[in-house]
């Protein structure tokens, strides 16, 4: 499994780079983040310890050199310490993120999987019936792809919640406190998730459709497809053979797509007031809660890396040529 170990090595380097960037940004940007945070915290009691923690976080008191700070930063990180969030009282960043992460993973994860499957199937269909009426759908999907996710979210709320009243217009559940898990609660959560998930699927499926269609069209010209056709295999069978091979670039292009989808989904959460990472990212921006911002960036990057690793595993599993190269 040399391929996989090389990919893991690459993801490790990427993770280290992301962490380093996260460390450097507050230190190379103009302005003084500590002052900005203190200005936003007016009315709260700031102890010496808090002040010291803030200065350490953003490197404005440089009793130790940049390298020393970097080592310190890593040691904090490895101890699971991402700093203190200041926007809502003084709470560890990890606590805030832990509260929001399940919502984002549930919503974005499900929507991405649905969109990938749906988009790929539609792409096969469009390629198979090339020149037919389905081709006229392509410009429409282009429009949905080009529209910002959050604009589609605006439309979805205005249309389906406010005018038609089919779905709740925002938030993730009616009861803010977590009751005992029962079917009513699950149904409530599901009811709130449909519209944001639908927005993400509609916005992101277009990319998979176009990608799959383009590869599928090229694949249908291959000799083995010709032979399958010549042997008189049923059409569905032939398309299945072609589609199995055409899906590979879609999976290897996953890394490019997932970043866009996650970014778009975070903005969708904001419009729906969905209490995931995107929503707390907005409050962090508004309240100059830098530690929280940095923490969210790290968590999202790591999640994207893990998703990519999973896609790599699938790829190696599907394509024997990759296994032979190693």
């Amino acid at each position: 499994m040399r391929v996989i170990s090389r990919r893991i090595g690459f993801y490790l380097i990427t993770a280290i780079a992301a962490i380093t960037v996260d460390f450097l940004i507050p230190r190379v940007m103009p302005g003084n983040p500590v002052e900005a945070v203190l200005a936003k915290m007016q009315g709260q009691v700031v102890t010496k310890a808090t002040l010291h923690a803030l200065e350490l976080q953003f490197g404005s008191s440089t009793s130790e050199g940049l390298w020393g700070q970097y080592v310190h930063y890593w040691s904090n990180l490895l101890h699971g310490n991402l700093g203190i969030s200041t926007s809502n009282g003084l709470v560890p960043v990890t606590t805030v993120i832990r509260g929001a992460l399940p919502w984002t993973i549930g919503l974005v994860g499900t929507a991405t999987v649905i969109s990938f499957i749906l988009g790929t199937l539609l792409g096969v269909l469009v390629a198979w019936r090339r020149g037919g009426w389905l081709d006229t759908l392509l410009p429409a999907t282009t429009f949905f792809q080009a529209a910002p996710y959050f604009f589609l979210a605006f439309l979805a709320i205005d249309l389906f919640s406010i005018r038609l009243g089919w779905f709740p217009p925002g938030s993730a559940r009616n009861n803010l406190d977590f009751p005992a898990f029962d079917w009513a609660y699950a149904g409530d959560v599901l009811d709130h998730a449909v519209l944001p998930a639908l927005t993400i699927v509609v916005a992101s499926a277009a990319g998979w459709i176009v990608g799959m269609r383009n590869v599928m069209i090229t694949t249908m010209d291959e000799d083995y497809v010709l032979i399958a056709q010549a042997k008189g295999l049923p059409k569905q069978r032939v398309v299945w053979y072609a589609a199995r091979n055409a899906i590979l670039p879609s999976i290897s292009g996953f890394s490019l797509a997932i970043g866009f989808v996650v970014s778009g989904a975070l903005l969708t959460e904001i419009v729906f007031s969905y209490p995931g990472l995107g929503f707390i990212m907005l409050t962090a921006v508004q309240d100059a809660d830098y530690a929280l911002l940095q923490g969210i960036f790290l968590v999202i990057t790591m999640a994207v890396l893990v998703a990519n690793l999973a896609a790599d595993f699938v790829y190696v599993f599907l394509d024997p040529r990759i296994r032979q190269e190693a």
Partner: protein
Amino acid sequence: MAIGTSTDLGSGPAAGPGLVPAAGPARQPRLRLPRSPKVLIGLAGMIGFLTLAVIGPWIAPYDPDRSFSTTASFPQPPSAAHLLGTTQQQQDVLSQLLAGGRSTVLVAFVAGLVATLLSVLIGVTAGYTGGAADDLLSMLANLFLIMPALPLLIVIFGFLPPSQGGDDLLIGLIIAVTGWAFGARVLRAQTLSLRSRDYVESARITGERGWRIITHEILPNLIPVLASSFLFTVLYGVGTYTALAFLGLVNPNHWSWGGMLFYAQVAGAEQSGYWWLFLPPGLAVALLGTALALLNFGIDEFINPRLRAAGLSRRRARLAGAGGTAARPPRRFVLGVTPVVRGREPR
């Protein structure tokens, strides 16, 4: 007769003797790009938006900052005086829409230009030199490709003092830094395949210098790929700038379509049915993006002729043959009708 459609695109091999007249005109060199309706619509849209970016702020009926009423506390729906209604602050939406186009288009094009320059510099260098430099630069590109750009930009702009968040050039530059990697990867792959072609080899053997080979032999052949990656990055720039402005991270006193969406969200437009606050700027962004993507489709089809569905459309098929069967385009996956203009590359 399905073969008639393939000769229409000038694909030699299938053309029988009876189809020579159809193959004749196709042989003449012509600009194939603007023929597809997709490309024409995209091109028209782009020209429209570029014009709007230049003259928009001048033809705006009012000053976009001017507040028209101090008594009204709700956004007013479209009326004769305000064709697209007013905002929460009683400013004219149409004027903001017209004024906001300039910064959106400007930031996107600055981002596209700078990112394309970076991608040429890094991608072509990596592909041409090979070896350790290639490994290093490829890894750098992959690293930027995989790191989620928007959260990174949000952190960067979050730390940027508000006084500097309104400079279009600076915003474009920062977006470009996160957006060059895709182009670099594509250009590297293309350079790699060009590098081993005979004409490049012979240029090397005759003693041409490296940079001359790059600028005179390789770059001209990269132009379609370059154009495609430029459009892609501009598209990325539009989306990213709009998202950043929507979050209120770039100076909100500076009108842009994303900024208008920010104020729509602040006013609770989607919850209260104030559609005129979010529909115009959102549609503008979506249409600009669609125009860019359609143009890009055209270039993709230019590079890879197999993607051309237009060659099989009803109208073209009808023009190609007079017979009853020829007028019907292939509706199903039928072998042998795919227009293959170039020969397959030897592997």
